[in-house]
């Protein structure tokens, strides 16, 4: 089966910023992403767990598959939101099965 080259970007970000991130992505014309729940984690700002939270706190993971040439646009858009906040952004080389899909 033909596999089309792509980049897989994974953004772990605070839940209250989710709406802002997807909006920034949409404005940058990145309309393909998947949002996964996160149970807990640890980073520079210490350890946390969803069970120790009330309300809309906690984090989510946003996964974007994107054409390699559009990676920079995506990262710039994401960065404006993530910048001041805790969270990580990672990129992996990937392939996608149905190219018309993204």
């Amino acid at each position, binding site marked *: 089966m033909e596999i089309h080259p792509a980049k897989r970007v994974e953004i772990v970000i605070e839940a*209250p910023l989710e709406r*802002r991130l997807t909006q920034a992505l949409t404005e940058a014309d990145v309309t393909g992403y998947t949002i996964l729940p996160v149970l807990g984690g640890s980073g520079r700002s*210490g350890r946390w767990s*969803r*069970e*120790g939270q*009330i*309300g*809309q706190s906690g984090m989510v993971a946003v996964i974007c598959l994107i054409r390699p040439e559009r990676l920079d646009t995506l990262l710039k858009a994401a960065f404006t939101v993530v910048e001041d906040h*805790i969270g990580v952004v990672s990129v992996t080389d990937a392939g996608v099965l149905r190219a018309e899909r993204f």
Partner: protein
Amino acid sequence: MNAIFDLALGNLLSPIILSFALGLFAAMARSDLSIPEAVAKGMSIYLLFAIGFKGGAGVAAYGADTTLLLAIGAGVILSFGLPFIAFALLSTMTALDRTNRAAVAAHYGSISIVTFVAATSVLESRGLPGEGFMVAVAAAMEAPAILSALWLVARGNGSGGKGMEPGLLREIMLNGSIVLLVGAFLIGLITGEQGLAEIAPFIETPFKGVLCLFLLDMGLIAGRGLRRARGVLNTGAVAFAIVMPLVGAATALVMGLMIGLSPGGIVLLMTLGASASYIAVPAAMRVALPQADPSIYLTLSLGVTFPFNLTLGIPLYLAIVQFITGG
């Protein structure tokens, strides 16, 4: 004095407070006891709906007069004003930077609905219910404090926040708990006693029991926070988290007397003034003041002030009001 002590003890030994203590203990002892997030959220939705509805039905039954408007006005003023007092206290009592002081201040201007619910519950069992519309006052006090905090940061040449991001104000005002509380209040107001009769077996009968389990969860969360915060917080900050509710309650007492609330209503307004937010404000702070450290404001609000109000604060406020009003 003895009366306060007895009341405090009676309050301490209620299932509600003991459930909170159980959660606190379990978290401190690192038990794996936990209440699923969805269940905790479901309980908080239940509590907000029930308290809002009962408040609205109460207003429908006994009517509302200008006191309602005065009380809401007083609440808004408290919410706007208390952050400034809190900010000043923090400047003298702690070495926190401007952003963190503002973030903490926002929490103490806003309110804790669970503390309010617990006070309602205590007042009811003492036969001293407050005005139904106090729920609306609670809702009105959630948001203004956030604006004061943002202004406090902005004044310090914007070193911390980016000011008022577009959309944030709307987001704060349409916060789920405010919408639910106000919405349920209106439903109670519209359907009145008949509506209350229809759903009373749901919103009144199991209320205290649900509150027990909810406070168990609050205890777990507060305990986990405290365990993590060991060392982070110094004496000054902890002292603030006990002094500030007293200051807030005293301010609210004066306003409550001025606008002529009932004794129960004054206790509720004092509780609102004394309590600190741990739901709406923290979420807003993550967006508006991301540099502020959540472990500071959450620990003070949820780990110190919340248990203080629950165990000592509410009985104290009640005793003071009974003393003053000769109740």
